[in-house]
């Protein structure tokens, strides 16, 4: 059980005289017992962050605390953490059993204690049949289980998982995701998982930390990320299917600031003045578009593609230059070329400044003063 605190952490790599900042001013607290997912595209610094916490990478600047103890100068072993690797990193020359006991042997755990723990882990991860096999004889899913087992057997304070599911095919992946979630519930260990897959993050996380370009973008529950993305990147990266983006502008009419765009969206903002150019980007999630009559429509377009997804249909439609998607009930009937009208679910219109790409919070009320 442990809390991880990351305070103003930087990581700079030097190669061939050039300096590359892999992590910039990272502040993050991972609570005791929490399942935290660090999410971001490749090269965003998420794996570097993980490697700094576990002690495989030096910390250029800043402090990392595990259990209120600064760990900057501690070896990985002294930090009492465990990690499951993307490649599983199993010792191929040892049997599954020897792999599992390897970390305990390093700590000179008494033999009977080793047996007890082995028994428990084997049961937990259903590995009875493969104990005496070599890793090279195992399937991907089995290897992944062994790598989880080898990490858990030492009872770490914090358990780190680096893209543990990316080498599994889709069926196994959902299975393994489930297993990890269950392991977390059973062990109550603080878990930190790194991934680029937002669906995986959504499914597993108590909270998600989104990173991009070496910087932390936003930390929040999956719901918060969907409902209140702080900037265009988070809005675009999180959510399936991807959020619809339209350009628009803020206009001032009769002492009120309105949002408008090429379509018909027109909403009061309650903003006091227009900062900057007034150019904005509107974000609407596909699930927040509701089919309606022409009279109350925010958006009007022509159907381009209708895809049948089983329980739902995904409709791609054209509004001016833009192609937007919406998820609608399977019972609706639309054909290509047909006119279609949508309104945006109340309070689900996300507005971002076009220049800064930051979210504009237009909900709060106040006296409107046009510029």
């Amino acid at each position, binding site marked *: 059980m442990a809390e991880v605190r990351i305070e103003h952490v930087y990581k700079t790599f030097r190669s061939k005289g050039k300096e590359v900042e892999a992590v910039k001013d990272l502040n993050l607290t991972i609570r005791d017992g929490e399942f935290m997912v660090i999410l971001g595209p490749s090269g965003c610094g998420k794996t570097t962050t993980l490697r700094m916490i*576990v*002690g*495989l990478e030096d910390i250029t600047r800043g402090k990392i605390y595990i259990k209120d103890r600064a760990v900057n100068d501690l*070896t*990985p*072993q002294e930090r009492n*953490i*465990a*990690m499951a*690797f*993307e*490649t599983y*990193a199993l*010792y*191929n*020359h040892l049997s599954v059993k020897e792999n599992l006991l*390897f*970390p305990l042997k*390093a*700590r000179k755990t008494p033999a009977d204690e080793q047996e007890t723990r082995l028994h428990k882990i084997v049961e937990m991860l259903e590995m009875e049949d493969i104990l005496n096999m070599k890793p090279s004889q195992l399937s991907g899913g089995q290897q992944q289980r062994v790598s989880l087992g*080898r990490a858990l057997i*030492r009872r770490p304070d914090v358990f780190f998982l680096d893209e543990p599911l990316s080498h599994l095919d889709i069926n196994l992946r959902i299975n393994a995701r489930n297993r990890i979630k269950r392991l977390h519930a059973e062990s109550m260990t603080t878990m930190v998982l790194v991934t680029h897959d937002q669906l995986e993050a959504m499914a597993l996380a108590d909270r998600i930390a989104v990173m991009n370009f070496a910087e932390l973008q936003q930390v929040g529950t999956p719901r918060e990320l969907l409902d209140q993305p702080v900037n265009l990147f988070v809005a675009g990266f999180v959510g399936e299917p991807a959020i619809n983006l339209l350009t628009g502008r803020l206009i001032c009419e009769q002492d009120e600031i309105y949002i408008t765009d090429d379509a018909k969206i027109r909403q009061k903002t309650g903003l006091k003045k227009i900062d900057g150019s007034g150019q904005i980007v509107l974000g609407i999630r596909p699930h927040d578009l509701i089919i309606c009559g022409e009279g109350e429509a925010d958006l009007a377009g022509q159907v381009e593609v209708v895809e049948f997804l089983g329980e739902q249909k995904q409709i791609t439609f054209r509004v001016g230059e833009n192609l937007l998607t919406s998820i609608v009930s399977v019972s609706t009937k639309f054909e290509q070329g047909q006119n279609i009208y949508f309104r945006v679910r109340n309070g689900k219109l996300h507005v971002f400044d076009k220049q800064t790409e930051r979210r504009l919070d237009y909900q709060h009320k106040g006296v409107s003063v046009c510029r």
Partner: protein
Amino acid sequence: MVSIKRGKNDILGDILLGLIFLFFMFPIYWVFTMAFKSDSDILIWPPKFIFSPTLAHFKAILFNQLSEQSVGATTTVNYLGYFKNSLIVSISAVLISLAVGIPAAYAFARYNFKGRENLFFNFLTFRFAPEMLVIIPIYLIYQRLGLYDTYTGLIWVYQLITLPMIIWILRGYFEDVSADLEDAGLLDGYSRLNIAARIVLPIVKPGIAATSLLTFIYAWNNFIFGMILGGTGVQPVTVAALQFISADKLRFGDMAAASILAALPIIILAVYTQKYLIRGLSLGAVKQ
């Protein structure tokens, strides 16, 4: 049409391969038959392909029995002694190179230090240098240091052959070991040294075996170092064949038998370990 044409090409290819095989194998075949011919059969023209074989040459060199064909030869050669020299020098040279080369290759594969690639290439240049070019200064130095005609001296100079090869090939094997494995070892609570011994070395073991065999073959085959830097006390078998050239007679049959005996262990080794050797060679050196 196409398949017929392909068939023709295949046959042509087979014939070509056959010719190449004959070309390379003929000298070995010739020396082999020579070792079993009587002296008179060896020197006859046109060459005899069918002859009655004799073991006289083998008896002569192994047991110092002078066959009736060798009458007139005044020197006897302690051939088994040379064999022992070859074994001592080659095996020791490979062992010492392994002791030095394994850590070196590991460091080249894993640690990013200043001038790494230059230093690494520098090791290869030891193989570039023609042996004839360096042998004279080494000879003079050895005379001064008292290393001439000693096992130590030969083993030392053999490092020029064995060490660069071991470092070059093993680096490739070490680079093949995923860095994740070592990170996992660190997290599991092992020291760097322990990780090298308990994780990396067992994985690289087949590679080390193949590389050792290959370098052993090169060491065994060396001629010039033993010839110049060793006296009769420490010279290897490759040089020993020269002893059969005496003032009064060229003992071709004895030489052929000696060569066959000298080459036999190497040929057997090479055939047995061919698979590993090819992997070793293509893995280590070529990948760079």
